[in-house]
């Protein structure tokens, strides 16, 4: 049990579980902000996979760290944009629940 941190599989399974929690929350949450939180979980699961492969398997161990930094930047931009969309939607519909926004289906 105590040597878990030196095995690749541990990190891959943690990443898979976080990804699964993200999908779970994405399907289960009825509100836009809850879905955004679930998306952040999905992104961090993907980042953990990148970092694990980077540490154990990559010949150049800077690549995964740089990709993870880019994922963080994209996630921050995505959070800012989607939260401002949520605020704009709330201003028009007085609600952030997905079911109240069926008009946006097109």
């Amino acid at each position: 049990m105590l040597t878990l941190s030196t095995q690749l599989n541990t990190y891959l399974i943690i990443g898979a579980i976080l990804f699964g929690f993200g999908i779970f929350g994405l399907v289960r949450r009825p509100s836009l902000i809850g879905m955004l939180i679930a998306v952040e979980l999905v992104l961090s699961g993907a980042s953990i996979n990148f970092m694990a492969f980077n540490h154990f398997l990559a010949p150049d161990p800077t690549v995964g760290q740089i990709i993870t930094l880019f994922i963080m930047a994209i996630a921050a931009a995505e959070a800012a944009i989607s939260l401002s969309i949520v605020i704009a939607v709330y201003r028009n519909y007085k609600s952030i629940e997905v079911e109240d926004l069926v008009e946006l289906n097109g």
Partner: protein
Amino acid sequence: MNPSLFSPEGLAGVIFLILICVTMIGAIIATCTKRLIRSVSGLAVCFLGVAGLYYFLNSPFVAMMELLIYVGAVCVTIAFAIMLAEPDEAKLARKMSGLSGGLAVVCGGAVSFALGYAAVNGHWMAPATQVNDGSLKMIGASLLTKYSMVFELISIVLLAAIIGSVALARAGRRGN
């Protein structure tokens, strides 16, 4: 093979187990609570654990960035959005139960199981040689040489995100 509990390796293993627990508990709180503000707190706890995992993966710089960007910026932004949009908590809680819960468990479990199965049964080959040690100095060097174009593109994306979010959040404000 197994280190004793009070050797440095054993203590590191105990800390690693604690970090896994923190990550999982944070993820559970983030997805399963009724109130959104609690799930943001759970998200912050989960990212704290993830940052610890990055530290175990020999990259303290990325761990610090995780703390700064995710816990410090993204979670605070989401908390502000929750305060501004004031979701109807009672209505949300009523809608949570029912069909979507079972469907969510099936979807999340299937994805998680498939990824875990692929990870355990894959044949990963260790690299023959490592061209550098992955230190912060090497990260900086390759950010400014090999990945300089991507670096600049990320800056443009962030600038566009800032301008776009300000424009989106301002629109329609004067009318009210």
